[in-house]
């Protein structure tokens, strides 16, 4: 049996979502067309709408409805500090700590040499422009402590240090309340290697 062409198209379109294969795409399509047509209508409209009004903040590169997002245009932030994160969720996590008053730059990814994800995909040019605005005094690299996050931090440091900016890296080591007995040996080995004097 052959599916209607529009159904095939919908299934194909749903597959652009991460982790959605042909089977789950077909299941979603049936659900939208059979069980929840109003929901499908809302989904279609909100995708259309979001596509039209959401784009990247000119300063921090995060998704925003304004050309400059509310965080970047706030008067209560320390404009001399710029914290670089991989993803918007990382920014949210840092915000929840209430311990950082500076501004952010969101790379929307990380260098991933083996996947061919390079400097263009993570907007390094935009970051350099942002960091060189004359107000930023220190750039804090808060990319992940994965091999890709480390490589990303290394190259951003090279690029920004060469332009006279002060660059720091968020610390790593034992977790809050961490007991040596229960910490994995990778974290522990790093904590020893990167110990600090008192």
């Amino acid at each position, binding site marked *: 049996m052959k599916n209607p062409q529009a159904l095939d198209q919908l299934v194909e379109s749903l597959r652009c979502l991460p982790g959605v294969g042909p089977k789950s795409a077909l299941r979603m399509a049936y659900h939208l067309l059979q069980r929840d047509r109003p929901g499908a209508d809302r989904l279609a409209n909100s995708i259309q709408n979001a596509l039209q009004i959401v784009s990247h903040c000119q300063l921090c590169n995060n998704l925003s409805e304004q050309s400059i997002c509310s965080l970047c245009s706030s008067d209560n932030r320390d404009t001399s500090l710029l914290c670089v994160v991989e993803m918007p969720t990382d920014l949210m996590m840092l915000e929840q700590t209430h311990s950082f008053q500076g501004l952010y730059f969101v790379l929307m990814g990380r260098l991933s040499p*083996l996947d061919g994800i390079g*400097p263009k995909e993570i907007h390094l040019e935009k970051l*350099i422009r942002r960091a060189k605005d004359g107000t930023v005094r220190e750039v804090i690299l808060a990319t992940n402590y994965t091999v890709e996050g480390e490589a990303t931090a*290394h190259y951003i440091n090279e*690029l920004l240090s060469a332009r006279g900016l002060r660059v720091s890296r968020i610390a790593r080591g034992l977790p809050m309340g961490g007991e040596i007995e229960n910490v*994995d040996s990778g974290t522990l080995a790093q904590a020893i290697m990167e110990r600090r004097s008192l």
Partner: protein
Amino acid sequence: MATLSHVFRQDNQQVFVLHTYPFKETSLVVELFSREHGRIAMVAKGARRPRSAMRGMLQSFQPLIGAWSGKLELKTLHSLEWGSGLLLLQGEALMCGFYLNELLLRLLPREDPHQALFDFYGQTLKTLSASFQHAPTLRRFELRLLQELGYAVPLVHDEQEDDIHPEKTYSYFAERGACSDHSGYANRNGVQLIGKTLQDMAQDDYSDPLTQLQSKQLMRMLLAYYLGDKPLHTRQLLIDLQQF
């Protein structure tokens, strides 16, 4: 009839993670380099869930101990733990590590054990994490990789089986070796080098700047020959980064 012996469980295996990529909603496919089994692919189920125990362990360039089962091409990874001696690759060394991994992913056939190469890879990572001059380390690995894969890289004799002469200029071709300038291959595009470069490489001596330069050109040509048309991502990334 299927019996338990077909489960093919492997425990306590020395491995390195070469690469991972997303698989289904919450899993990863992991490309491992195993000492006993060579390059193998397996699924780490649920490894992309936030609280997955395996998540933090799936990092390249660390000696790990793994357990898996399955006899198909895609196996199931059960556990990973830290092996001996954590390695800290930073900066340039990290990018060199990615380069080694890309070479292994592109050139190592699946499920073909290369114990000596595995040991040499571990040693190379150790050297990268402890030194600042990475070029000789990379040349040694490239050469050893081709040799372990069974590709001849003759360094002591030329294609006529004559001893290499240190002061003579040769053209070097893949699958053929060093040709004297006046031989029939001289006008094809081989790598031009002097005999001393080959002798230095045979003796693992990369102290001469000319040897460093010519061995780099030689290995680049040979690797390009065996890699085929598809360029290396890691090399392209370094080129792109230099544009800033």
